[in-house]
């Protein structure tokens, strides 16, 4: 599995995990371009926190990559969709903006 597929898989696993805490009708979509955070998504800030931490944990476990997704300089814009988040994580890993 290439790096991008591994990242996508970690994000989807994390979404599925977080979805267990959400009622039917408020689940986060696992479609690549569906909105993760911000309109039209109804995801609240607590759910975003759970999602970010779950993704970070999964990247650590499955890829050995320690990534900090909460970067106040870029805000939450990478969380627009799975695709943008995947791009952002790939960028962090490639630029080695992580603790090895």
């Amino acid at each position, binding site marked *: 599995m290439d790096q991008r597929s591994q990242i996508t898989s970690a994000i989807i696993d994390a979404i599925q*995990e*977080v979805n*267990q*805490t*959400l*009622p*039917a009708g408020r689940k986060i979509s696992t479609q690549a371009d569906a909105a993760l955070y911000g309109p039209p998504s109804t995801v609240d*800030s*607590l759910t975003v*926190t*759970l999602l*970010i*931490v*779950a993704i*970070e*944990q999964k990247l650590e476990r499955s890829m050995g990559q320690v990534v900090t997704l*909460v970067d106040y300089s870029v805000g939450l814009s990478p969380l627009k969709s799975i695709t943008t988040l995947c791009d952002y994580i790939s960028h962090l890993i490639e630029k080695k903006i992580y603790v090895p």
Partner: protein
Amino acid sequence: MSPKLNGLLVSDFTCDVLQAFLTNLPEEPSCQVELSPFGQTINILKDPSGPLWQNSLDFMVVWTQVMAVVPSFKRVLRFEDVPQQDLLSECDVFIDALKEGSSRARFVFVPSWSIPEFVRGYGPIDLKKANGFRRVLLMLNQRLIDGLSELPNVFILSTERWLQMSGDKACDPRLWYLSKVPYDPSVFRSAAADIKAALCACLGGARKLIVVDLDNTLWGGIVGDDGWQHLHLGGHDAQGEAFVDFQHVLKSFKERGIILAIASKNEESVALEAMERHPEMVLKKSDFAAWRINWNDKAQNIDEILKELNLTREAAVFIDDNPRERERVRQALPGVLVPEWPENSLLYTKKFLSLTCFDTIHISDDDRKRSHMYAQERERGDMRAKAQNLEEWLVSLDTTVNIKPLTEDDLPRATQLLNKTNQMNLTTRRLSEQEFKAWAEKPGNRAWVFRVLDKLGDSGLTGIASISCQGQEAFIVDFILSCRVFGRKVEDVMARTLVQASQEQGASQLKAKYLMTEKNGPCLDFFNGRSGFIKDKDGLFVWDLAGEYPVPTGITIKAV
């Protein structure tokens, strides 16, 4: 489906994830849960006029962090020497608040205190040193347990177990700093599952019967093919050892009051011979209250066992290594719990011990004797088959029914019976010990308990009857009899007791309002049939108190 239970979460951290799991998990009971304002635990508990208490609460969860309610614990975490008394007195403030708040919910769950696994404290001397983090934590949890032990509706749940289940991701500081969530969602999921299981236990939903298969479930191998001498059971063999351990665990549950039965496709004589002759067999024939060992459909066999033991499907768990048999029973007998079962026999004991369906909030002496009582019941059944009629059978058994007004001593067992009995139950009301006691102490209300004995043994406290008198009318509120003894005229003794008590109260009519459930048909049959009560135009069963209730014959009645 049962109505949703109303719950309240009182916490000093963000508890929304627990609220979500309690609300969204499919396991029964269904819950709707409100969250208290963040971080005001003691004030909320101590203020009875607060808006959170306006709705009646079925349950409340009070989950706090130790440093929030015992502020001196923060000093312990800073390696300061803190006087024990300071810690204990702060803990007592919380205990007092819980005592005050606990009366406002039927059931209260208090998760124990924990600290994250990555906090090492003083390392190897952490449990030795007076101010070791974990030593102080143990002391405070013990104080909490002791301080709340007298409250029958309050239960301390083990947070430590939930943390263990989540491993090293249980406490992630990122969640704490970003959202004041101290635990991973998986911890809240385990907590919600345990709270739901505890609610089931509180509401009398604990399973009472385990029906097991034999081949490759209780022992390794096929006894009919291999012979009992060649079964995998005991010895210096991983599989054999695991089967023996599984049998030991089943036996320990039997000693705790869970009934064992067998449903197996085998020749009965061959299987029973294995049980009696194999030297490593832990469970013997006498440990089982019933068995169907034949080539018939297992669902049909289980149904027969339930009828023989007078139990409902909701009381039973079926354990079988064969997925086809499990599926067949699930399809044919909805209500019977059929857990998925591991293929690897080394995992049987782990799987069994993780089942929540036997969780209970009270184990009485009667529970412990239950399997023995069912063995006696089998003997009674044999005698019944030989007797010409009911009276001859009762006389041959030398049956005595003891009647006693409800006292505090009987309250735990009586409440358990009240909350567990489904079939011979007029109104199926469910109450906690405190609620039942408070009801019985109200003017005009009276309650009795009934114990049945015969020459084969003591069936224990098996009946409850109560009335509420309002002027010229008395109403039967509870009419509850264990399935183990109904059909032996105990129900007539109960009816007669209520008739006499109502006459003493000066009432002219005794009325019973039957509240139908899916399971209490036997109670309707009694009131409709031989009880002699007359159904009035409003559907109430009425006894005109000008007349006596006939003395049941063939049994001895004693007022204790």
